[in-house]
């Protein structure tokens, strides 16, 4: 059965085009996906991301458990409220999911995982947690609204009480604080500044409406996808899955091979790293007209690769993509678009930062 977030009626009343997204009935756009994209790059936009799964971990051995569970090191989290992006790997070093973990107290961490991987994530976390006496509690009583864009923070702060505002205004990037009954994190999936707000379901519709009144544009998952691709952020299922290691998904920066920490998948990752012949993920820009799409073949002198996430970039006005290619492929490659080989340039990404195209893109 299709699941609905608490904001479903609100989206429909706004005239949103709804689509099935991993079993959830979600807005893809409210009108023009490109205008929603620009609203986030230039001003402020918001997304209902209540389909994402919030999981609370309680227990004295929480940190020890997460050292074992995650490829990134939770020992980087020293102050309460601090967040960390990490992969959760299987024994073969494949990515089960990517997630954000918040350190709230030594016996209380909060994890946010993807919607499409909810069931297998919960099963895996619970299985691993048993040995550490960590209690795993999903929080379906929460909704989540991401408010993103150069003016997003000011617009959110304007809705808070003076006490909460003072607290939330101070938090740095990748830090969360609680105020006015909200869990507000300075995180996002667009490459812009802003907040992801975890809100009790009963308060979500009124928060959404207050944000709208403050001039925050409702944006659908379509714009969210082009924004995160321009920002160089991976999408689980498209850019990586259980058959792909973090090295092959350009997520090496999230792997901490710190001394003496036996996290799940570490052995395979170390072997792969030493061999250094694994496939790599690169950014592509196409200067010709057309759109790069998931699954298209990429011809390189080193052999074939494939397009992972591919779309039209509203900021650049041309198509961009991630591709997984054999090691060594660089310079000009060719994408197979309906049988025609179209030149594409390998570039360093992110493609867009702070609303502007990056150098070399």
């Amino acid at each position, binding site marked *: 059965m299709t699941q609905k977030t608490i904001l479903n009626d609100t989206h429909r009343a706004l005239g949103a*085009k709804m689509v099935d997204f991993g079993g959830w009935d979600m807005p*893809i*756009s409210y009108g*023009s996906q490109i205008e929603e994209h620009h609203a986030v790059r230039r001003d402020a936009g918001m997304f209902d991301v209540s389909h994402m799964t919030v999981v609370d971990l309680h227990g004295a051995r929480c940190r020890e458990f997460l050292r074992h569970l995650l490829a990134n090191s939770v020992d980087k989290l020293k102050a309460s409220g601090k967040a960390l992006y990490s992969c959760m790997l299987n024994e073969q070093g494949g990515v089960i999911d990517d997630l954000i973990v918040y350190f709230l107290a030594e016996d209380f961490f909060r994890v946010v995982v993807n919607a499409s991987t909810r069931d297998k994530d919960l099963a895996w976390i619970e299985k691993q947690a048993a040995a550490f006496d960590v209690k795993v509690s999903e929080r379906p009583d929460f909704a989540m609204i991401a408010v993103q864009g150069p003016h997003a923070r000011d617009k959110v702060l304007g809705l808070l009480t003076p006490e909460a505002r003072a607290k939330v205004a101070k938090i740095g990037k990748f830090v969360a604080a609680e105020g006015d009954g909200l869990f507000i994190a300075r995180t996002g999936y667009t490459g812009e500044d802003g907040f992801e707000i975890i809100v009790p379901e009963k308060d979500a519709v009124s928060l959404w409406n207050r944000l709208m009144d403050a001039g925050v544009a409702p944006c659908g998952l379509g714009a969210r996808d082009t924004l995160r691709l321009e920002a160089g952020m991976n999408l689980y299922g498209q850019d990586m899955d259980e058959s792909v290691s973090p090295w092959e998904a350009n997520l090496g920066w999230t792997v901490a091979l710190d001394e003496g920490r036996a996290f799940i998948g570490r052995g395979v990752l170390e072997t792969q790293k030493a061999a250094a012949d694994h496939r790599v993920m690169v950014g592509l820009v196409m200067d010709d007209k*057309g*759109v790069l*799409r998931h699954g298209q073949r990429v011809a390189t002198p080193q052999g074939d690769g494939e397009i992972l996430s591919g*779309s039209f970039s509203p900021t650049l006005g041309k198509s961009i993509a991630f591709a997984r290619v054999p090691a060594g492929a660089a310079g000009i490659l060719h994408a197979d678009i*309906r049988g025609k080989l179209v030149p594409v340039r390998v570039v360093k990404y992110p493609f867009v930062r702070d609303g502007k195209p990056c150098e070399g893109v």
Partner: protein
Amino acid sequence: MQEIPGDLKFMKSHEWARVEDKGTVTCGISDHAQGLLGDLVYVELPSVGDTVKAGNACAVVESVKAASDVYAPVSGEIVAVNEALPDKPETINEDAYGDGWLFVIKPDNLAEDQEELLDPDAYAELIESEDH
């Protein structure tokens, strides 16, 4: 949603065809189709002089979301294409039945091919049933 002009015929795959006075057939995609696709960003048109067969793909329209083949509503020869579209594909979003036309066909068997097409009422019914 734009009103469907009464002089159009439709394919189930959402192409429209208009028989002009001089006997040529102007073709495009329906307003409903552009709505489903969302913001259009790329159009691949046939070349003037190409021979097309009714029901075969002869153009591609791509939105941010997806690529979609466009099928020829009738068989014949391409005698004109909308040269303005490749630089302004969003014209299809703005005016699917007017400035957003894609190509013109000089038909081979108009009478026969036309029988396969839907009139505006039948097309309206089709998209109504797809929405539910």
